[in-house]
């Protein structure tokens, strides 16, 4: 009937004469996705600037020149503004641009390392729960529920204050706390893949469990893994900034964006740009990572949108 006819028409219309290869389709999707491209460009810029910080920052980020403190950025109509300090200087006379560039390194380092740690823990738990099911699933589900019921910021603050804060401590504390989304997503993704025929075929062939997990399951849940990884990196960066803002993350005189906001807090009513600049940097970085993550989800699995 008509339904059949329209279906045929749709199928026919979707069969072009020379079909693009899967790679071409993927490339077209990536370059056609505005959010993905914006995110990728911003992140690339920030990563390059962070890597080049030792060479391109105009001043030493730790260098205090008290006679040149609180110089406003150049776009301010002030006689003090100078191209020597394009973004001005802070309350201790340290060049704001240099601190911003070096701060990017800290944000990226903490975000990436914490994401790696939590990714390993979460993926391990999630894949095991999804693959083995039954009792293993029950126990891991219990662990996830327990972790979720503890408030992250509060526990992180308490633990950091008890151990003493340093870059390494912050990375480990965040990494050990934020694996929950990895575990939840990996668990359901593995459950779906596990039910497919090729896994049953591998089992029938007598493949070892570790081989099945490594070559059959992991590659097929990798796209979900990458999406969660980007989102969790953004999460870790925001948490680090919040911890540093509360004085229990990265310690002075290190240039962390959260710490810069915290140090400028007392002066923000007179010099609002002191908190606006690092805040905007933080916002741009997290926005870019989130755009990239959302874009990745759309590109790898467009059928799952919404």
């Amino acid at each position, binding site marked *: 009937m008509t339904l059949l006819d329209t279906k045929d028409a749709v199928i026919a219309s979707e069969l072009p004469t020379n079909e693009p290869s899967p790679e071409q389709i993927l490339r077209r999707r990536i370059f056609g996705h505005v*959010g993905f491209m914006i995110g990728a460009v911003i992140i690339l810029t920030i990563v390059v600037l962070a890597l080049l910080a030792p060479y391109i920052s105009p001043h030493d980020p730790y260098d205090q020149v008290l006679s040149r403190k609180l110089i406003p950025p150049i776009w301010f109509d002030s006689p003090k503004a100078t191209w020597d300090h394009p973004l001005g200087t802070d309350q201790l006379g340290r060049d704001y641009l240099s601190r911003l560039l070096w701060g990017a390194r800290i944000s990226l380092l903490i975000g990436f390392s914490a994401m790696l740690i939590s990714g390993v823990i979460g993926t391990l738990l999630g894949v095991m729960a999804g693959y083995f099911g039954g009792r293993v699933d029950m126990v891991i589900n*219990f662990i996830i*529920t*327990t972790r*979720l*019921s*503890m*408030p*992250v*910021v*509060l*526990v992180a*603050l*308490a*633990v950091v*204050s*008890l*151990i003493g804060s340093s870059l390494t401590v912050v990375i480990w504390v965040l990494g050990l706390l934020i694996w929950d989304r990895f575990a939840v997503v990996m668990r359901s993704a593995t459950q779906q893949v596990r039910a497919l025929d090729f896994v049953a075929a591998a089992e029938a062939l007598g493949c070892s469990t570790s081989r099945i997990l490594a070559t059959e399951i992991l590659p097929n849940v990798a796209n979900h893994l990458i999406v969660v990884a980007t989102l969790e990196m*953004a999460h870790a960066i*925001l948490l680090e*900034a*919040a911890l540093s*803002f*509360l004085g*229990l993350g990265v310690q002075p005189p290190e240039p962390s964006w*959260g710490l810069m*906001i915290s140090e400028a*807090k007392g002066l*923000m*009513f007179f010099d*609002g740009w002191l*908190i*606006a600049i690092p*805040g905007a940097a*933080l*916002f741009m970085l*997290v*926005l870019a990572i*989130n*755009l990239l993550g*959302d874009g990745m989800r759309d590109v790898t699995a467009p059928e799952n949108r*919404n």
Partner: protein
Amino acid sequence: MVAYLIKRLGIAVLVALTVSLITFSMIYLSGDPAMALAGETATEADIRSIRQFYGYDQPILVQYLNWLWSALQGDFGQSHYLKKPVAEVIFERLPTTMLLGACALTFALVLSIPLGVLAAIRPNSLIDRAALTIAVVGQAMPSFWFALTMMLWFGIYWRLLPITGTNSWANFVMPAIALGYYITPGVMRLTRAGMLEVLQSDYVRTARAKGLRPVTVLFKHALRNAIIPVVSLAAVQFGFMLGGSIVIETIFAINGLGFLAWESIQRADLPMMQAIVLVLSIFYIVLTFLADVLNAWLDPRIRVA
């Protein structure tokens, strides 16, 4: 239903016990708690007497069971700094945080549910795009920076709202927005997805075919069903917000549980820290339990699981 409830309750109790164990062992992270309490100038005798006074000389398991037994009776010990019972201080501060959480949740729901519904009625329209943009931008904004920026504009430049304290309702406007905006994207997306699904269902088509007014179909038939998962998400997010209010309360100097937690961390007030973490965790466990019960009551299919 009863079997499901009992199973779910059992898990909740087990989770609560595990959380209490983790919370309790937190004090040993810094090494010897007695030494930490005594300070650097303490003599060996001082440390020994402190250890005896607080019971740190007993086996850890005994200490935990004692602590748990008192906690179950509402006794969390004495605050090391305030020299008052911990439970008393917590109950003084809890209502403020609850009020802040309720305001933040109200703000989030009032903003996100209508936006989600509008976005679902016209998918890919301007409103849908705008809602999505708000969601993406909102999630990238560090809450403390957002709070400070609001303070600067609404409090200092325009002088519309008071910036700190809890004297009037106006004091809660900015903190509630700062705390609540973070959960709006999730609620909005879930509302939108739920509405999209329900609007395509057969009974909505039937209702429309009967000639009911579009508004009636939308609110009486569609939204009622689409909102079910949103209710449980809101309950869970409320728990998250109470835990996250530490940053906001510290910025706006709101004398709630979060601010108390920050003060206690600064003062190394261990019993207080333990109790706050435990209370907030239990709160979250109770909320998720209630959300599950509500879901099972509304949707019989869940009860089998």
